[in-house]
């Protein structure tokens, strides 16, 4: 099986990222779930690059006009959109949690004023 230089470049990049992933795992910078998720992602990416020709055939068999690499780009775009959307929702939940914490702290320190009621119309500043 011969690889084009583009495939080789892509595989090198994937190997670099996978190496970084193992390093992060060893240093316990990421948890098991996250490690598995990214490992699956990079493995699928590497397999897709290695088997680009069969992927072309699969794309044609599915009746799509694009070739394999284009299909990969379309899928990558879809996944990215989904991840950004998920992240926005996650961020919205975090913002909500932060608001709740801020409110709890503010209410904990709140106390009624000890200032006397206003007697005149003059500004009490």
């Amino acid at each position, binding site marked *: 099986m011969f690889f084009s230089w583009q495939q080789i470049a892509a595989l090198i990049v994937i190997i670099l990222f996978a190496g970084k992933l193992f390093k992060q795992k060893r240093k316990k910078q990421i948890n098991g779930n996250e490690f598995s998720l990214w490992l699956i992602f990079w493995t699928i990416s590497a397999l897709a690059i290695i088997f680009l020709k069969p992927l072309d055939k699969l794309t044609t068999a599915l009746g799509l006009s694009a070739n394999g690499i284009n299909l990969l780009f379309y899928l990558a775009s879809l996944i990215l959109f989904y991840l950004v959307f998920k992240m926005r929702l996650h961020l919205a939940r975090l913002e909500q949690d932060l608001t709740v914490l801020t409110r709890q702290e503010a209410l904990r320190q709140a106390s009624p004023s000890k200032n006397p009621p*206003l007697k005149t119309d003059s500004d009490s500043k």
Partner: protein
Amino acid sequence: MKIACVIPAYNEAKNIGPVLKKVLPLVDELIVVDDCSSDETNLIAKKYPVTVIRHPINRGQGAALQTGNEYALKNGADIILHFDADNQFKAEEIPIVLAPLIAGEAEAVFGSRFLGKANFPPLKRYLIMPLARQLNRWLGIKTSDPQSGFRALKKEIWQQITIYNRGMAHCSEILFKTVKTGCILKEVPIHVTYHHFGQKLSGGFRIIKDLLLQKLSN
């Protein structure tokens, strides 16, 4: 009947004093929620006989109102009124907003700038407000003012409402949730003096985005 007024304030050092002075004689308790102002809003508010609650982080007007509501409900308020700190609403209209609640004619009263003679900037009158009103109609809200911030509700209604939108989308959220309680809702005319434009067109789109995100994240 204890009437509490919640005033959210963010960098309103210039306006907060006069507003407090005018509102104080009209309510039983005044709660200022300082949303982490970087100016002297907090110091000025503390000179008055009001409860000042300070958010350690800026969380937006909706969040400040919910904080004020929680404090007021915990301290025995029967009616909670929302009023702005920017001196755009008229304090002398507070009794008009409260009257239907005190008389038992309504459980929620919203001030409407469209029933009064508010001097809207053209973009706001002819584009933003009609769009907001249309959006509200899709949500089943038929009030004349889609974004009124001058409102008073009985405690029984507030107890059923939690404001999640911390930005300006809270106005639509409160209206929507009030309608959903099935309470008797009334609109009264109010007058507003605009010192600055307020909401821009982009702000309107942000409100729609915030409402959608809030719906999806819950």
